[in-house]
């Protein structure tokens, strides 16, 4: 116990948490595998059935290993994923990994931007509402939070686009960059924003940033509703905390009491829930990308879904699952760094 607060227990906690990724991942991969198999219809027929003869279809199925027993398919699927092999798409014969590399960057900057925006605006708003509880300001912020959370993403996106086109016609409303910029900027990292920065032209960077504003704003609003409500409730809760009153009894200044004792403690549960929202953000990203014609993984997923490209969908969903698992580990580690009680 005497060494309980040392860094040893933190390292041990992180070690255990990372090891727990293995069973977590296994459960998720199994779920992905089962969900795709219980869907009715046979993928090859669904994708290209009307164009090929039954013999050709059977041959395709054999190629994809779909004629093997389920259990063998399952073992092979897990084995491939372990070697980071997500398969090759049926429709355009591209390795799924290449799709992820080419289009993942756009999704990354979209979700990160939305996330930063939601946290930067949502946390202060939630804190303000919590401190000014039951005032008109609080009511206004709460209504805003509920509306942004409840409004469907594609509707918000379309409304924003309509508004921008009316009042600011020169502002870009779709895509990740203007065609000229997209053509000029050499592809290095497959992340448009980073490539533009590496290219070094101010105009190109501004152009890409401008393209990010509307999609990030739209996706950010979805997250912000959750964050506002969470921060507000937790700040109210923490302000009633016994240690907050005890700090006041020691004559600590009110500003510091709120910052160090109420607000900081209120953020602990918020971190956990924000981490869980990553899954929500990813599903929101699919809709946002669709709305803004964003060249990311969400757009790719919808295209492959429409094409009944079963291998591509399986690969992309697997990748999303891995991202969610990794983020949840990161959130747990951050939590352990912030809250000493978490480390066991």
């Amino acid at each position: 116990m005497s060494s309980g607060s040392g860094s040893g227990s933190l390292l041990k906690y992180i070690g255990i948490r990372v090891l727990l990724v293995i069973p977590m991942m296994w459960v998720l991969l199994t779920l992905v595998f089962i969900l795709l198999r219980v869907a009715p219809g046979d993928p090859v027929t669904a994708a290209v059935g009307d164009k090929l003869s039954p013999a050709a279809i059977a041959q395709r199925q054999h190629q994809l290993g779909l004629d093997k027993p389920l259990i063998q398919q399952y073992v092979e699927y897990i084995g491939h994923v372990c070697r980071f092999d997500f398969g090759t798409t049926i429709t355009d014969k591209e390795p799924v990994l290449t799709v992820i590399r080419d289009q993942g960057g756009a999704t990354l900057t979209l979700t990160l931007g939305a996330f930063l925006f939601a946290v930067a605006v949502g946390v202060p708003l939630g804190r303000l509402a919590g401190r000014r509880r039951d005032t008109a300001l609080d009511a206004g912020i709460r209504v805003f939070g509920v509306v942004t959370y409840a409004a469907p993403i594609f509707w918000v996106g379309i409304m924003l686009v309509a508004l921008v086109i009316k009042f600011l016609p020169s502002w870009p409303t779709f895509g990740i960059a203007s065609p000229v910029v997209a053509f000029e900027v050499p592809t290095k990292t497959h992340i448009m924003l980073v490539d533009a920065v590496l290219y070094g032209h101010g105009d190109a960077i501004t152009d890409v940033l401008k393209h990010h504003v509307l999609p990030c704003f739209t996706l950010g609003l979805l997250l912000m509703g959750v964050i506002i409500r969470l921060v507000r409730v937790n700040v109210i809760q923490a302000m009633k905390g016994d240690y907050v009153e005890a700090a006041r009894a020691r004559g600590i200044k009110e500003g510091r009491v709120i910052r160090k004792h109420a607000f900081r403690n209120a953020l602990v549960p918020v971190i956990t829930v924000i981490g869980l929202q990553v899954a929500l953000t990813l599903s929101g990203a699919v809709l946002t990308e669709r709305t803004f014609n964003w060249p990311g993984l969400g757009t790719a997923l919808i295209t492959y879904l429409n094409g009944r490209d079963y291998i591509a969908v399986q690969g992309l969903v697997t990748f999303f699952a891995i991202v969610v698992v990794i983020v949840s580990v990161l959130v747990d580690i951050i939590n352990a760094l912030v809250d000493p009680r978490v480390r066991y």
Partner: protein
Amino acid sequence: MTVVEHSAHEDDGPVLEARDLRVWYATDRGPVRAVDGVSFQIRRGEILGLVGESGCGKSTLGRGLIGLLPDGSARDGELEFQGLDLLHLSAREQRDLRGTDLAMIFQEPLTRLNPLMRISEHFEETLRTHEKGISKDEVRRRSLEVLRVMGIPPTRYRAYPHEFSGGMRQRLMIALALVLRPAFVVADEPTTALDVLVEAQIIRILHDLRREYDTSLLLITHNLGIIAEACDRVAVMYAGEIVEIGDATAVFSHPKHPYTRELLRSTISLSTTGLNYIDGAPPDLVEPPSGCHFHPRCPDAMRICAERDPVDRDHGDGHRAACWAADLSDGLSLSEDERAPLEREEIAVADEA
């Protein structure tokens, strides 16, 4: 602050004196008179016990003394601390006094330390708030010294609150309250959440405080045994008023007020053969009973008790009580009508209503 300390050393006058102190809370039904006209003094190094049933205003009085009241409450009357008029200080001036001169120890030690802060950080924060520019070494030296007095080893200085037991956490809270050597400490049921052995240990620590720190202490409790063991004087509170106050042994051996007597009778000990309790419940503090607040439950109630407020009278050696019956046995003359026992039926009907 130095001026304040000088005046305290001058004589044996009270460190803190309340005169007709009132603390009311606003509610939808009207003001709750949680503390309703209370007068007492605490001398330097003295331990004053404050007893009473739950909801009688003990904790409100304790918080009222150090200015730690929630929004929607107000204090009135007079409250003098080392020559300062506490009720007319700004919020900022009151805050500056808390920690350095006035301190509080709470009932629930488990939840009173911030779980995200090390013990060292709690001490640093407290010391730095009140003594600008204090060095890190000085913070450490002074914190470790007070922790040593509380029996916490220096190796635990950097630990987090969850690594300590309940008793240790209460000792940490006491250390944190004492690190700035306040002249007056309110301890609000400091042992209620702890087991009996730890309770004895904490009471011993509080009892010995004056030797190390010359601190005056208001010890709020509902445990009469603790009062008898640790306190010099005791104040008995009922329905927002102090009904009896005096030397602890005098009050316990010759209680003047029927409420004190009944409270003592309901104490449980090894020799207890039957349980005593006081009929009825504490009154509603929004509309307290007329006359003596205790008259509806008092076995000695007379007609006068329901009509006129009893006078707070000294019965010798500073043993004060506010009770008509006590006055009567001390030789006060009351008319036949005033002395007539109060009809119990009326009370029962009033209770039903």
